[in-house]
C-alpha cells in the first residue's frame, strides 16, 4: 500500500547553505539517504523483473534520516530534518539489496516455495537476478486457523517472515571471472513481530462484536446472479465503522516489539561457489504504551556494507522517541546517536541528531506534521541547530510519529 505525502519545506535550497553556516567551498555535509521501505506489492505467480537497484545503504550514507515510513518525500531539502525511522522493513532482504520489487512471489506450499527458489538459483548453481520471494516458513507446513492463531506459538509461526531477493550488483568495481557473467547480489532477510496486541484477530471481544453485527439478519432472497460485490447497508456500515474506529482509538499508542535481520552476499560471476559476504543489517524496534497519554519508541539499527563504494564500514543508529498525545494529535521529542565504523579509520565518525515534531489530524486521511531538528557533531558539517532551515511541514495520509500506525 502506498500512501502519498505532500512535503513543503520552509527552507529554500539557496538559503539553506547560508543559514547552516556552511562554507561554500567546504565539502557538502554528508547527505542522508531517503530509503522508502519496500511496499507490499502485488503478489504474482512469477517474479517479474526488478527495477534497477537503488543505492544500497552504505556506510557513508547512513539511513539515519528517512522519509516517514508511509511517505514519499519530494524535494531533496525535505530530508534535511533527521527523523528516526521507527519501522521494521517488511522484507529486509529487499531493503538491504536496495530494491523495490514490482512483484513479489509469496509461495504458500513447499512446492511453490521450491519453484520460487528456482527462479533465484538455477540448476546450474547460478544466481538469477530479479527474484523477489517472501513467505512465512511455518505456513508452508501448517496454516493456523483463527483459534490457533490466538495462541502465541502459532502466531509466531504465522508472523515469522523470510524474504529472499537477487539483483544485479550495482557495485561498479566488481569484476567478472569469466567475462561471461555479471555480478549478482543475493540477500536473505528475516522479520518477526514478537508482540503486537493491536492485531485485531487477537481481540476476542472485538471479534465477538463483529460477529454480532452480522448475526440475526433475515436470509437473502433467491439469487439472480453469481454475485456482485456491493457496499454494506448503511446500518451495518455504521456498526462496523464504530467498532473499527473505537478499536483504533483504544490502540493508538500500543506496545509492540519487532525484529528483523538481513544478510547480503555478492558473486562476481553469479555462481554460488563464488559468493562472498557483502553486508548485513539488523533492526530492533520497540514501543511501549505510556498509559493513555503517550508512547515511547526505541530504535536500534546496524547496517554493514563491506562493499560500499567510498568508505565501507558499519553504521549504527540507536535512539528513541517520546510521543505525548492522543488519537488525533501528538507531540514528540527524539534523539539518536549515529556512528560510522569505517574500514578506513580516518573516516570514522560519530554524531547525534535531535528532532521535535507535532502532528495533527486534519481529516480522516490527512495529517499535518511540523518538525524541527538537525544533526550535530558530524564531520564536515557546521552545527547550526537553531535555524529556520531546520523546520519542515508536511501533509501525510497517515500519522508518522507513532509506532504501529
Amino acid at each position, binding site marked *: *500500500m502506498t500512501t502519498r505525502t505532500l512535503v513543503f519545506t520552509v527552507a529554500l535550497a539557496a538559503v539553506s547553505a547560508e543559514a547552516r553556516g556552511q562554507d561554500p567551498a567546504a565539502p557538502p555535509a554528508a547527505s542522508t539517504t531517503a530509503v522508502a521501505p519496500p511496499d507490499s506489492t502485488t503478489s504474482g505467480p512469477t517474479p517479474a523483473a526488478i527495477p534497477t537497484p537503488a543505492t544500497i545503504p552504505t556506510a557513508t550514507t547512513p539511513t539515519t534520516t528517512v522519509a516517514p515510513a508511509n511517505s514519499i518525500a519530494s524535494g531533496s531539502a525535505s530530508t534535511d530534518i533527521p527523523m528516526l525511522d521507527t519501522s521494521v522493513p517488511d522484507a529486509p532482504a529487499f531493503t538491504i539489496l536496495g530494491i523495490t520489487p514490482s512483484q513479489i512471489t509469496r509461495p*504458500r506450499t513447499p512446492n511453490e516455495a521450491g519453484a520460487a527458489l528456482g527462479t533465484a538459483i538455477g540448476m546450474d548453481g547460478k544466481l538469477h537476478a530479479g527474484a523477489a520471494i517472501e513467505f512465512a516458513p511455518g*505456513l508452508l507446513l501448517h*496454516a*493456523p*486457523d*483463527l483459534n490457533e*492463531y490466538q495462541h502465541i506459538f502459532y502466531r509466531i509461526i504465522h508472523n515469522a517472515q523470510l524474504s529472499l531477493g537477487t539483483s544485479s550488483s550495482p557495485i561498479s568495481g566488481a569484476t567478472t571471472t569469466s567475462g561471461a557473467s555479471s555480478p549478482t547480489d543475493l540477500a536473505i532477510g528475516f522479520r518477526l513481530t514478537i508482540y503486537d496486541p*493491536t*492485531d*485485531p*484477530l487477537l481481540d476476542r471481544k*472485538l*471479534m465477538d462484536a*463483529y*460477529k454480532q*453485527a*452480522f448475526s440475526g439478519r433475515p*436470509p*437473502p432472497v*433467491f*439469487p*439472480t*446472479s*453469481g*454475485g*456482485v*460485490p*456491493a*457496499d*454494506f*447497508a448503511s446500518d*451495518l*456500515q455504521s456498526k*462496523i*465503522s464504530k*467498532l*473499527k*474506529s473505537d*478499536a*483504533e482509538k483504544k*490502540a493508538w499508542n500500543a506496545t509492540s516489539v519487532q525484529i528483523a535481520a538481513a544478510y547480503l552476499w555478492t558473486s562476481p560471476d553469479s555462481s554460488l561457489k563464488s559468493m562472498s559476504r557483502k553486508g548485513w543489517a539488523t533492526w530492533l524496534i520497540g514501543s511501549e504504551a505510556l498509559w493513555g497519554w503517550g508512547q515511547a519508541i526505541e530504535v536500534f539499527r546496524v547496517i554493514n556494507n563491506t562493499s560500499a563504494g567510498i568508505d565501507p564500514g558499519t553504521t549504527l543508529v540507536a535512539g528513541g522517541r517520546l510521543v505525548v498525545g492522543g488519537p488525533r494529535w501528538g507531540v514528540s521529542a527524539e534523539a539518536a546517536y549515529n556512528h560510522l565504523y569505517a574500514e578506513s579509520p580516518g573516516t570514522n565518525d560519530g554524531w547525534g541528531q535531535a528532532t521535535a515534531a507535532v502532528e495533527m489530524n486534519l481529516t480522516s486521511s490527512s495529517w499535518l506534521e511540523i518538525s524541527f531538528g538537525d544533526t550535530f557533531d558530524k564531520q564536515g558539517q557546521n552545527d547550526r541547530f537553531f535555524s529556520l532551515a531546520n523546520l519542515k511541514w508536511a501533509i501525510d495520509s497517515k500519522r508518522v510519529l507513532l509506532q*504501529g*500506525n
Partner: protein
Amino acid sequence: MALPTIQFSKASASVLQVDVLIGNLVYGYYELFLWDRGGTVQTKIGGGVNNDDLPDTIKLPNAPATYDGQTLQWRIDAAPLPNGDTTYSVRVRVRQGENDLPGGTFSWGGDLGDGKEIVGGAVLVGK
C-alpha cells in the same frame, strides 16, 4: 443476469463440498443456503467466520444426485478491521471430492472501502 451452473457427477460417490475463503486481513463472515428445485424452500447449510488464510469447507452430506437442480446460494461479507487491510479477496469453490467442478469457482476482490457484501448463487446440475 442468469444464474451460473455448476456441473457435477450424479454417479460419483464423492460428496459435494463448498470451500469459502475470505482473504487478507479483513473480517470475513459467510452463510451458505440451498434452495429446492422450485426455488421456494431455502435451507441454511452452513456459515461462520473466515479470517484466516484457510478455506472453510462445508460438505453437502447427501448423495450428490439429490442436489440436482437445486440452487446453492452464498452471502459473504468482508468488513474492514482496525489497522487491517484495505483490500479484500473472496473465493467460493465447489468441489466433488477433491476435484474442482466445471463452473464451480467464483472469486472477487478489490478495494474494501467500508465493507463489501456478495450475495450470489449457482444451480447445481447433475450429469
